[in-house]
């Protein structure tokens, strides 16, 4: 049960605040001791400014006792700090709320010009920028995510991408959006951050780059499994071989990061691929990765794929599928996908089954698909009706008979010669082009 639980691993790459949702989920799940969970939560809270929340948790832990003074001290300290920061940032906040200035900001193209303008006309001080970031961070620590997000977006207006705080700003903004569950905005921020990391010229250090990517992958899980398009994006991120990674044409850097740093992400990737419409395209790649990493990470979901695509062991796949259900129940990100996954996995099994077999008894199929024979028959009938399956049901014998797959020589011939026309055309075109250029050059020379 807890064997496949990933919170422990995921937590290493998440922000403190991002772990809370995971813990909340776990406490509804009852696989761990409630008190221990609270203890952990308290541990997490101790390093934030959310003192009230911490007191709550403490009281949950020790129902009949008065919280120690330490909390109160903390609280006083936090409040004091807040006041200080507020007073420091007040001028800039006032500036930013000024109608005229915000219009000016919206108009401004160049950050430097904007700063110049502000400095000249509004008594702006460059130090204010940093204090703004600090304030935003403080707000974030206090749990005031919307405020933090707002400050951060203002902050970003005022700094150029070359600023040393730009990266922190992006991360902070992403965290805020995720915690406020504004997925569209979060996705926007995520893309901005991803682009920045991919193109960031100062990551000379590969290790640093790898680290950033690993974090990004983990944070993005929140978006991918909550946004409606999320899973497609997840697949794109890992399995698309895009041209825009010029240095490593062969390897997708994110997949690389997964393989080196966090193979447990494969669970999410696998799930996405199986539930994806066009899974076949990606399956091959995925299977390769799973096999390569099988010694560092395996769970029922990856094993399911392995059983099915490598060993063609349908019984094993069936068993794994059953285990998968449990995994899904206990995974914060995947719990909503359970039914979808099961349905798709079944279809996947069946697809492969049909590829191999010519004649299948419905009873056996039902067993393999974890259904009753009647259900199975209905299910298959539906598939046939939707023209997704070329088959007939022999209800007398209880068999499904596949349509013949044999290819006629005629078809074969067509297949073989199909591409040839285009290839020849390309070739002649190239030749012509070349000839043309040679002739031109020839004139030049003469």
């Amino acid at each position, binding site marked *: 049960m807890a064997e496949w639980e990933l919170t422990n691993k995921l937590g290493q790459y998440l922000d403190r605040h991002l772990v809370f949702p995971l813990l909340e989920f776990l406490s509804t799940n009852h696989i761990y001791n409630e008190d221990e969970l609270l203890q952990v939560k308290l541990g997490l809270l101790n390093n934030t400014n959310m003192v009230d929340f911490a007191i709550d948790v403490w009281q949950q832990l020790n129902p009949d006792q008065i919280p120690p003074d330490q909390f109160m001290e903390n609280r006083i300290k936090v409040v004091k700090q807040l006041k200080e920061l507020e007073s420091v940032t007040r001028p800039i906040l006032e500036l930013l709320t000024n109608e005229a200035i915000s219009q000016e900001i919206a108009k401004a193209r160049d950050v430097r010009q904007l700063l110049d303008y502000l400095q000249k006309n509004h008594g702006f001080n460059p130090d204010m920028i940093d204090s703004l970031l600090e304030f935003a961070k403080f707000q974030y620590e206090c749990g005031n995510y919307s405020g933090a997000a707002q400050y951060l977006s203002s902050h970003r207006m005022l700094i150029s991408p070359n600023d040393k705080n730009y990266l922190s700003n992006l991360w902070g903004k992403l965290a805020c959006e995720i915690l406020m569950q504004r997925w569209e905005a979060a996705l926007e921020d995520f893309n901005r951050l991803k682009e920045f990391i991919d193109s960031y010229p100062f990551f000379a250090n590969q290790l640093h780059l790898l680290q950033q990517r690993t974090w990004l992958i983990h944070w993005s899980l929140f978006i991918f499994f909550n946004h409606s398009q999320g899973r497609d994006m997840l697949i794109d991120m890992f399995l698309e071989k895009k041209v825009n990674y010029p240095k490593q044409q062969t390897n997708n850097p994110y997949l690389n990061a997964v393989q080196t740093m966090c193979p447990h992400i494969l669970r999410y990737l696998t799930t996405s691929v199986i539930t994806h419409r066009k899974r076949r395209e990606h399956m091959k790649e995925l299977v390769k990765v799973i096999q390569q990493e099988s010694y560092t990470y395996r769970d029922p979901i990856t094993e399911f794929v392995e059983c099915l695509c490598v060993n063609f062991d349908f019984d094993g796949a069936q068993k794994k599928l059953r285990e998968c259900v449990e995994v899904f129940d206990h995974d914060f990100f995947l719990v909503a996908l359970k039914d979808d996954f099961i349905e798709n996995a079944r279809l996947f099994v069946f697809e492969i089954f049909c590829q191999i077999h010519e004649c299948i008894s419905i009873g056996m199929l039902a067993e393999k698909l974890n259904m009753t024979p009647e259900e199975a028959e209905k299910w298959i009938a539906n598939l046939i009706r939707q023209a997704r399956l070329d088959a007939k049901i022999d209800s007398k*014998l209880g068999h499904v008979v596949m349509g013949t797959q044999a290819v006629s020589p005629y078809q074969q011939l067509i297949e073989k010669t199909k591409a040839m026309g285009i290839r020849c055309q390309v070739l002649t075109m190239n030749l012509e082009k070349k000839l043309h250029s040679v002739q031109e050059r020839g004139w030049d020379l003469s």
Partner: protein
Amino acid sequence: MSGRFFKGVSDSESESSEAESDILPTRPHPAVTSAFPVSDEEEEAKRVVRTAKEKRYEELHTIIRQIRNHKKIKDISKMLSGFENLTRAFQKAKLVIEREENNKIPTFYLRCLVELETFVHETWEDREGRKNMSKQNSKSLATLRQKLRKYSKDYETEMNKYKENPVEDDEKEEESEDEESDESDSDDDGPMDFMKKPEKEVKEDFKEEPKIDKDVEDDDESDDSYWQGSSDESSLTSDDEKYGGNRAKNVFERDTDKTKETTKRRRKPKEGEHRKQRIHEEEDEQEEGRWKEVQRGGIPGEKPKMFSKDEEINHQSVIKKLLEILAMRGKKRIHRSDQIEMLVELLDICGAHKLGPAIETKVTLGIIAALFEYNPNVSPCMKPENWQKCLKFANLLFDILLENPDIVVSENIAEEAESFTAPSFRVHGCALTLVEKMDEEFTKLLQAVDPHSPDYIERLKDEKNICTIIERLQTYLEANQKGTSSELCRAYILRIDHLYFKFDPLVFKKREQQAKARANSLVNGDGVQTEPQDEEKKEGAVEEKPEEPQIGETSLEVIDRLCKYIYAKDATDRLRTQAILCHIYHHALHDNWFEARDLMLMSQLQHNIHKADIPLQIIYNRALVQLGLCAFRHGNIRDAHQDLLDIQFFGRAKELLAQGLLPKPQERTPEQEKMEKRRLLPFHKHINLELIECVYLVSAMLLEIPDVAANEFSVRKKVISRSFYNQLRKNEEQPLVGLPESMREHVVAASKAMRVGNWKACRDFIINDKMNTKVWNLFYQANKVREMLVQKIREESLRAYLFTYSHVYDVISLATLSEMFDLENNIVHSIISKMIINEELMASLDEPTQTLIMHRTEPSRIQGLALQLADKVTNLVDQNERLWDFKQAGAFGGQQQRMGYQNRQENQNRNYQEYGQRQERNNRENRRSNYVRN
């Protein structure tokens, strides 16, 4: 008798000292003491009145010696001039000879002539060598030959006589050669002594008492004491006062000994055992000599050789002396062995006076350095005695250094900044470099010994010592952060270098233990439903894991630790690369396939290893081979094949792994060959070549045979392994195939069996007693490997069978197949499914009856031909496209890059599925159309 004897002796002494001041590199063998006072005394000692005979003979000797030296270095033009000088000098000496020797030509002169003659003859005959000679030399050679021929006519009879009866001299020759190899120049003195004493006299001496000397050693001793007494007197009375008294005494003793030796030698001229005895005696003598000196040194004030009587022995004086001795290095008349012994003595003195560890360190460093410099050339190895000494002193050095952590030894300390007196000693030098040098010497020693002789084992015993020394070096450098990180890296790489190729069975035991422990903890973990999720808690649980009898740090962990340090700290790329490769090797050796593979892939070495230096490439090759073997043990046949392919491809595994030279000397210059020889690995590091080849061939068989079966008639069949094909072809070319004898024949026979799906025969060819002893038993867990292999053979045979015979079946029952190949039902199912999915097999399964139904489309003749035509047209288009690409790429893309490991990895899956995807279908058609046509 004593008088006469004595006279001769003193003569020889004066002569030898004369000679010394001229060119003689050293004193007679054990004359350590006489070399000690590096003073002007010797020059003065020259003024001795000598007879004409002595003078002439002296001259002759000098020239002969020169000639001999030139001969050694093959400087023929010098030899020619030497020869001319010699004849001239002999002419001068003729008178004396006539008077003294009754016109008998002295033997040493004859000997020289004979030697010259043979040498010239030999050089003349050696046409190869003559061609390589410089112009000047070859010219001189011709002249010398002529002159010599002319000259020797005059002495023909004598020379012939000498040739016939060279007994005594031959004996001496051998002796002198012995001594030469001992690096003591007594061969220069030998003949001189021998000549100097009028033979008859000596002979008479011993005729008088021939039996007394039977018990040689006793006799020696008694003689010694006797002579010692008398010499003391003589030094006071008869000798000039210019001789330092002690010096004379010492030399005198030596010479008496020498005389005795010579005479003894003469008396027993034939036996080999005599020589042995003599060497023994010499050793005795040496010891005796040393012993005497030390005895004298025991009372420090009276030690004349190292320090004068009244000289105070303190740090400065010792350092001064040390520098003096060290400064002697390279000077001609100081022999290196003397230098070493002086240093050893100095060390003793330091010990006796308790001058502190720092100074001892300094002296020890000096000794080790001197030992290394003993050989002037780089290529030949050290002598075993010196090697032993070297080990001893290295140990001593670390004794001192580890006991006294307050000594700082560093190269960065200038000679002037050294301090020996107070704690926080500072010494110039570098222990690390010494150990590195030592390690190199050790490799050379091993290279020089025949690996199949017991000597090798004898030498190899020192491996342990050297490992200890390296470990001590490491502890020394680690303690108190003495070493900088780069020094530590170097020390670690030394350690790794001695560790990485050694197999440690403990690794496996530990692994089993851990697996067991994990299983236990899993059981426990499952029992407790509400296991805490908290990280700390989990870690705690890991720590509490019940661990059975502890296995200490295994070599794998040691290497892991050291390598990780190097990865992090190393600044030079080379050490890191070396560390990575050793790490890979070690992982692979211990069946950590995934780790090894990942390291290999992550290091990306396969892309740039060809830019590295050759020793590194050798390690790379070794790591790759080991990785291949490991993959094989894991059953990853394709990986194993790919890893070994590069090594086996050209059939030069031996060379690529630096385990031997190819017998093609004409392809390289002597220098190259020398370099290659130096790079050869010592035998104990070798990887068994037959094992590599066998694993490679078997892997190739498992991959290739089903592929061959699938593409029997295909035009575009890709060859997976060319060398495997070569083996097959060779076998087919034979008119008569007998029972397989060699490993290769076994594999070929097995392949043939597999080709028709006869897995039992295949298995029996691959796994039998012969192959077991030759190959499989070399694996650590041989049985596991064999099991894996049998399983693979079954599976691949099944595939081959289906490819070959599927067209004769309409329907096959899976149960029959599983019975035929002794495979489990689900495995058969899985294999067939895979084949169907990959479109290798045109068939589908019928689930209710558990049978495989073959699909067959019977193309008509015209269809078959059309398909063939389509194939050919496709080929044509392919060719055109390739041509175009080639033209486009022009000069830049023409050469195809060596396909790296990474790419191969990626291609791997593709290949697997691509092979014969469509081709399979075509084949069938081709086959059929052929059939139709016939």
